[in-house]
């Protein structure tokens, strides 16, 4: 145990986590020349393409230092706020963390939020100033920023470059010398933390865990504490680039477990694994049933594909336990599913995976957060509204609460004014303003989560010219003056376009929504009135004018097949359109109303 080190890498997105992980693997000879590829741990196509880490990944390295053999377990964490719970569980599995800070960008919002998570778990922090090879690197100042943040000595900050490999040896040395070896009682009952799971078509769910006490043996009867389920450990082992089967995984180590579980839902990140016969009395703290933050309807573009969509969603759920869904029906779109996501990125990922991996063309409706409505009859019982159309009749509603977040934004002082007015427009209330340096400011706001869903990231980027980073955490429900904004196309309400918004913004948003839809809905053979309404009151209207002329002048001998082929192509282009009433709506119109300011 004394030669094991468990550590994670935490950083703001793009500060170089995945690249540095690659270098550590190279340097310790954990990958052969043949196995090498960039961002090795990001195994999903989506992760590679977008350059983001969506899932946690663990890998074990062997390293000899001063004549002794060490086992280094690296846990790479997702780099997006949607997945902060997973990050927190990965952190809980470690004794130390490399805190990577980009030498050009300095400290950003997620640097701080991830650091706090690590400190809460008493991790030893090793600050790494990364990307020192960049011409725009600013090592002195950024080191000062880090020293200010951590209260450490400048000499503790390791200068490194994931690109050139500079500093990697120092990092490994620091991991061994500074990160404490795991502690734990090998003879105590098994106590292990599940920090991730991966679905494998052939082997079922692979559970990744960290053993705190006792050991987990092949064939052992075990129990997952939170779910109460019992299994036999069919196979256990450690995680090299390929899995290494072991007869047991011992105290302090990180490994995988296969039990024949077929659905990812059964394996809850944060749960404790223990022995069935001799259970631990000590569960790993911090378990939460992750709750979806954002809800949206997902519908097949072609109504006939509903069953196929259900199959695809079920399969997707096998390897993404945080996806929840249940059937719903929409007057406009027919049968589909109301889905819960961890956040907007998660929603995008699900939509994209449905299209890529399952070849489904889907419509995602305007997303919303989860509201609590209280009726006059039952003013103490919350009625949960995950779909705007579920909001009870306004005359019967006592009050509505919506989820609030604490938003942390770090930006340059030049942009404080812009960021401030954006957040105020988004119903934010400033709670703190701290100058981290003379040029960099940390702002915190209490804000409705719903405002983040509506067009926040892009606008923040715009108003700060890209110099703002953002993070948030939930702070509970608050009462708000909310109304439902409905959209009517050709006189018919389209429930999939309804949204709950603050009464004060209703007119502006209604107007923008109509304008945006006018832009997105192609001209058709007849005029299409677009109206925004609150209750029976129309607050805004636009019209998509009918096409004037859409016919070939001449259609004789040779024109016929040429024209037919052209029109067939046109018809195929409509694959991503959904007919609602008599109007054809392009797939992206449902979502693009979120980008009202583009």
């Amino acid at each position, binding site marked *: 145990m004394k030669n094991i080190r468990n550590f994670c890498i935490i950083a703001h997105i793009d500060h170089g986590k995945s690249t540095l992980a690659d270098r550590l693997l190279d340097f310790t000879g954990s990958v052969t020349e043949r196995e090498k590829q960039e961002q090795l741990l990001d195994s999903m196509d989506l992760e590679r393409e977008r350059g983001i880490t969506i899932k946690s990944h663990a890998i074990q390295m062997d390293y000899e230092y001063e004549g002794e053999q060490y086992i280094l377990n690296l846990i790479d964490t997702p780099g997006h706020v949607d997945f902060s719970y997973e990050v927190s569980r990965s952190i809980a599995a470690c004794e130390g963390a490399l805190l990577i800070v980009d030498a050009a960008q300095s400290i950003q919002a997620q640097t701080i939020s991830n650091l706090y998570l690590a400190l809460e778990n008493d991790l030893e922090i090793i600050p790494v100033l990364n990307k020192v090879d960049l011409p725009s690197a600013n090592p002195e100042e950024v080191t000062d920023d880090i020293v200010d943040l951590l209260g450490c000595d400048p000499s503790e900050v390791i200068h490194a470059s994931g690109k050139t490999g500079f500093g990697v040896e120092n990092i490994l040395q620091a991991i061994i010398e500074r990160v404490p070896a795991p502690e734990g009682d090998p003879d105590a009952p098994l106590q292990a933390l599940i920090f991730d799971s991966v679905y494998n078509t052939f082997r079922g769910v692979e559970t990744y865990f960290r053993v705190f006490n006792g050991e987990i043996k092949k064939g052992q009867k075990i129990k997952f504490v939170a779910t109460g389920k019992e299994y036999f450990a069919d196979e256990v082992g450690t995680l090299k680039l390929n899995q290494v089967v072991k007869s047991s995984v011992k105290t302090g180590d990180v490994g995988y477990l296969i039990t024949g579980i077929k659905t990812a839902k059964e394996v809850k990140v944060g749960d404790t694994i223990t022995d069935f016969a001799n259970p631990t009395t000590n569960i790993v703290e911090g378990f939460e049933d992750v709750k979806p933050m954002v809800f949206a309807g997902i519908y097949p573009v072609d109504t006939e594909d509903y069953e196929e969509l259900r199959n695809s969603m079920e399969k997707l759920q096998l390897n993404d336990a945080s996806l929840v869904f249940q059937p719903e029906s929409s007057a406009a779109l027919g049968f589909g599913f109301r889905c819960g996501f961890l956040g907007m990125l998660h929603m995008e990922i699900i939509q994209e995976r449905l299209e890529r991996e399952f070849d489904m063309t889907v419509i995602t409706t305007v997303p919303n957060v989860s509201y609590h409505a209280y009726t006059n009859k039952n003013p103490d019982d919350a009625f949960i509204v995950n779909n705007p159309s579920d909001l009870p009749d306004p005359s019967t509603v006592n009050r509505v609460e919506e989820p609030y977040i604490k938003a942390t934004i770090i930006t340059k002082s030049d942009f404080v004014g812009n960021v401030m007015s954006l957040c105020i427009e988004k119903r934010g209330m400033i709670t703190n303003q701290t100058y981290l340096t003379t040029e960099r400011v940390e702002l915190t706001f209490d804000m409705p989560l719903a405002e983040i869903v509506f067009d926040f990231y892009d606008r923040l980027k715009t108003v700060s010219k890209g110099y703002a980073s953002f993070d948030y955490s939930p702070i509970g429900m608050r009462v708000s003056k909310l109304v439902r904004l409905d959209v009517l196309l050709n006189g018919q309400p389209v429930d999939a376009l309804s949204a709950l918004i603050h009464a004060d913004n209703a007119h502006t948003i209604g107007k923008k929504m109509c304008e945006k839809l006018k832009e997105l809905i192609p001209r058709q*053979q007849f005029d299409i009135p677009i109206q925004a309404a609150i209750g029976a009151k129309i607050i805004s209207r636009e019209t998509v004018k009918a096409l004037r002329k859409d*016919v070939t002048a001449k*259609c004789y001998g*040779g024109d016929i*097949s040429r024209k037919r082929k052209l029109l067939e192509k046109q018809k195929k282009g409509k694959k991503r359109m959904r007919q609602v009433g008599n109007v054809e709506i392009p797939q992206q119109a449902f979502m693009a109303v979120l980008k009202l300011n583009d």
Partner: protein
Amino acid sequence: MSGIYIHIPFCKQACHYCDFHFSTSLGKKEEMIGAIEKELKLRKAELLTKVETIYFGGGTPSILKGEEINAIIDTVYSEYEVIDDPEITLEANPDDLDLETIKVLAGSRVNRLSIGIQSFLEADLKLMNRAHNAKEAKDCLDQAKKYFDNISIDLIYGIPNMTNEQWQENLDVAIALNIPHISSYALTVEPKTALHSFIEKGVIDPVDDEAAQQHFNMLIDTMEEKGYEHYETSNFAKPGYFSKNNSAYWQNKPYLGVGPSAHSFDREQRSWNINNNAKYIKALAKDELPIERERLSAIDRYNEYVMTGLRTIWGVSLSKVEKEYGQRFRDYLLKQSKRYVDEHLLYIDDDKLMTSKNGRFLSDGIAADLFMVDFAK
């Protein structure tokens, strides 16, 4: 019944809007006629029924001399079985139709003239780079009427800067001359035409769809008022004067097209000749047919039927769709057409699905929506 289409790929000068196949150099004219006669001989087995229509299209068939036209017609008669009173149409341009030529044509088997008037107004003719002027347009019709009863003229509307009054004037002249058949087209800016590049460069104003739509409505109203039937999107005729040749295209009847770029149809496959004069002549000199063929699937045929049916007074027959393609196609057609029926762009008259007056100018997009397509393809 069958039709024969003969493509004469020569013109005096290129009209600015034209993307048909033609050449302005007449050097190969004799060889071309020889090649066309050769093709007629080589393909006679392809027509299984009697020839009812012969159509000289182009290009500008009136560029040929009377005896050249007669020689081609004679070849048709000697190689094919022709009914007693076939419709034999010649497309002609006003600048070719002097009194002498008209008399020669009247003495031939040609019994229908389709004259490329396009406009009676000087400015329009100039803008389009037509070879004739306004006076020639009227004069030739005065003369032709004395020798031919069955005359069709082409008129183009939606020309940049054309006012409603000017368009009405064109229509009034045609009606005053009592022309029994009028083909009238919205000016279409095809890619790779001179007109297209002039508009791109700003030399000519772009066409205005709204004006074109007004002209189209004026056309429909005027024609209806004067007793013409609107039997196809762009075609109007007094009773008894429908073009038999063209109607065949829209009624799924077989036709044989000879000459470069000509298309043929035998109800199952479409074929088309190479659109290059020199290569066409060369191939036929070796007794080869420079032709490409494409077999139509049931879906293709259904789509073509919908597309052409919506353009005509014959509409799309639901029972015919069911009989030829099955219940599934009929159900699909009805389902897809519902929203257009709701919006009064289509209507169902007994067994026929038809475009309404408002739907006629939009029938392509509507047809596309009624198409069956295999998205996987």
